[in-house]
């Protein structure tokens, strides 16, 4: 799985015995000594941070599942009971809720890093595609999980999102009701959402295995995008990157802890403290912050089906990205013009996130919010479908360094 010649030599009789039968220690040892490019910067620490997020969410989630009751009459109360009566429930519940936000914060950083440094390009297409699968599964898991506390936002979020399926021609309504297990979001919906919310993280863990396997097979990308050529260009994963990732993880945990202890509700919505009421929709429903850009894209189009297709397209386009970008140069460092387009792309994503939270008619700097969303949506798609394919053909990249080592030493001098 590690994709480099093994250097592990079992020392003891027992480990020799085991190595012949199940080389599991060898696998771990090879993982730890994996030759990583020596020039990886802090943007590369998010893989480790994300692994931690996944493990933390699974552990706190299993704990919450021990106390949570997936029934419409008791779900909200059981969450309150967790926060009031279960030993340390007041700590574990916000760890899980804030953890979801932290997970997305890290995954978005990780994805922007991959985009900037061209980590999706040959021979790493499978790494990127598995990453996109993980992202999709995370969105599903996040959405299902947000339904479980059974507050107003849970209920109406579930109603709106499952409504997307209702927009599909002909089969839409039957499909939606099949998903819900009824005419509307109700107890059967909550039950199956709970079951799936428990299942999907383990599917994510499996796909993470494939993601890492593909990455180790192709080798890690690095900030200059030039493949390692000699032994000098790489360092053993341990201790060099374990300690670097470790430092980054602790800094990340500082942010995580700040929210858990001091702002546990800041990333959620006050309306979710109101028990789900199928008779009254909150005046202003918004999804969790990490879905806001897609929500803005959805609302940018006045047609229901088109809006949904566009939103789905915004994610689908990521899957074909490796074939859209025509440039052979990976890192934006050597593509000065495309780099500017990329920065604009990041800004467009933030604009979408911002306007996803606003009411479409609200004026911002004299322009209705929905027009901001439309402009940013247009740019979002143009970046992938026009700018990247064209820039690869017309832009003359800067000269690439000969090797990682040369670039490192050159920069230092």
């Amino acid at each position, binding site marked *: 799985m590690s994709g480099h010649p093994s250097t592990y030599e079992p020392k003891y009789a027992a480990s020799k015995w085991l190595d012949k039968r199940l080389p599991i220690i060898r696998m771990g040892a090879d993982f730890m000594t994996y030759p990583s490019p020596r020039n990886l910067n802090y943007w590369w620490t998010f893989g480790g941070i994300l692994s931690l997020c996944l493990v933390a969410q699974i552990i706190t989630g299993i704990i919450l599942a021990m106390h949570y009751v997936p029934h419409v009459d008791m779900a909200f109360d059981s969450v309150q009971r967790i926060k009031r009566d279960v*030993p340390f*429930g007041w700590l*574990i519940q916000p760890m899980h809720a804030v953890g979801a936000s932290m997970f997305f914060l890290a995954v978005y950083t990780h994805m922007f890093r991959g985009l900037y440094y061209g980590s999706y390009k040959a021979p790493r297409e499978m790494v990127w595609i598995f990453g996109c699968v993980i992202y999709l599964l995370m969105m599903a898991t996040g959405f299902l999980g947000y339904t479980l506390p059974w507050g107003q936002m849970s209920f109406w979020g579930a109603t709106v999102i499952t409504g997307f399926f209702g927009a599909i021609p002909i089969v839409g309504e039957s499909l939606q009701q099949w998903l819900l297990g009824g005419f509307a979001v109700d107890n059967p919906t909550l039950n199956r959402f709970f079951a799936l919310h428990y299942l999907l993280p383990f599917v994510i863990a499996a796909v993470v295995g494939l993601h890492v396997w593909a990455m180790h097979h192709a080798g890690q990308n690095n900030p200059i995008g030039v493949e390692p050529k000699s032994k000098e260009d790489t360092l053993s994963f341990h201790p060099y990157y374990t300690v670097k990732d470790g430092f980054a993880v602790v800094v990340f945990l500082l942010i995580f802890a700040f929210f858990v202890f001091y702002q546990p509700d800041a990333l959620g919505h006050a309306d979710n403290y109101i028990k789900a009421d199928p008779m009254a929709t909150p005046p202003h429903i918004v999804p969790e912050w990490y879905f806001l850009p897609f929500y803005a894209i959805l609302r940018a189009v006045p047609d229901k089906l088109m809006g949904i297709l566009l939103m789905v397209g915004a994610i689908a386009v990521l899957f074909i990205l490796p074939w859209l970008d025509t440039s052979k140069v990976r890192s934006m460092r050597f593509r000065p013009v495309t780099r500017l387009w990329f920065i604009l792309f990041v800004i467009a994503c933030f604009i979408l996130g911002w306007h996803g939270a606003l009411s479409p008619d609200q004026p911002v700097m004299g322009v209705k919010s929905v027009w901001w969303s439309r402009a940013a949506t247009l740019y979002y798609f143009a970046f992938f479908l026009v700018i990247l394919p064209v820039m690869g053909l017309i832009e003359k990249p800067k000269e690439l360094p000969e090797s990682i080592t040369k670039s490192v030493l050159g920069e230092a001098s």
Partner: protein
Amino acid sequence: MSNHTNTSHENIDEDKRDFIYIATGAVAAAGAAALAWPLVMQMGKAADTLAAGAIEIDLSKISEGQQLKMLWRGKPVFVRHRTSGEIAEAEAVDVADLKDPQTDDQRLVATPGGKLDPKYLVMVGVCTHFGCIPVGEQGKVDAQGQYGGWYCPCHGSHYDTSGRIRKGPAPKNLEIPPYEYLSDTVIKVG
């Protein structure tokens, strides 16, 4: 000379580095251990479970030879109004012969007057073997075991009229719950 100084400097550096690694590892391990505490303790009894109320039982409503069964903290509590024959039988047993030696008096709680009332036996109705509920209905001798008290059908433990284990795999006498007399005829369990 200069070579020598260099070497000793390196040794000092080496020591410093080792210290940093050990300190970092130790602090990280301590943090992980501290984090494990709430993650494990959450499975303990929750505050609402601990607060589960005490129950009051009016003894005067139980006629002689009858047994009342009530749920307390998720387990049945047996209150038996014993006949004088059963009391005599319980008191006549030689404590030295018992697996879990206890006199009948030791299994009772004083009334407000300071005396013991052997008529009423209060026990947690859970076999001390593996937690089944023993049977002991009046009038059915085969359902009371060989010692006229209770019989656990799961693995065949026999309890006498004081709820003491006499035969079978159970290691202990039937447990006496914490209870007190509020008056001569009302007790509060828990």
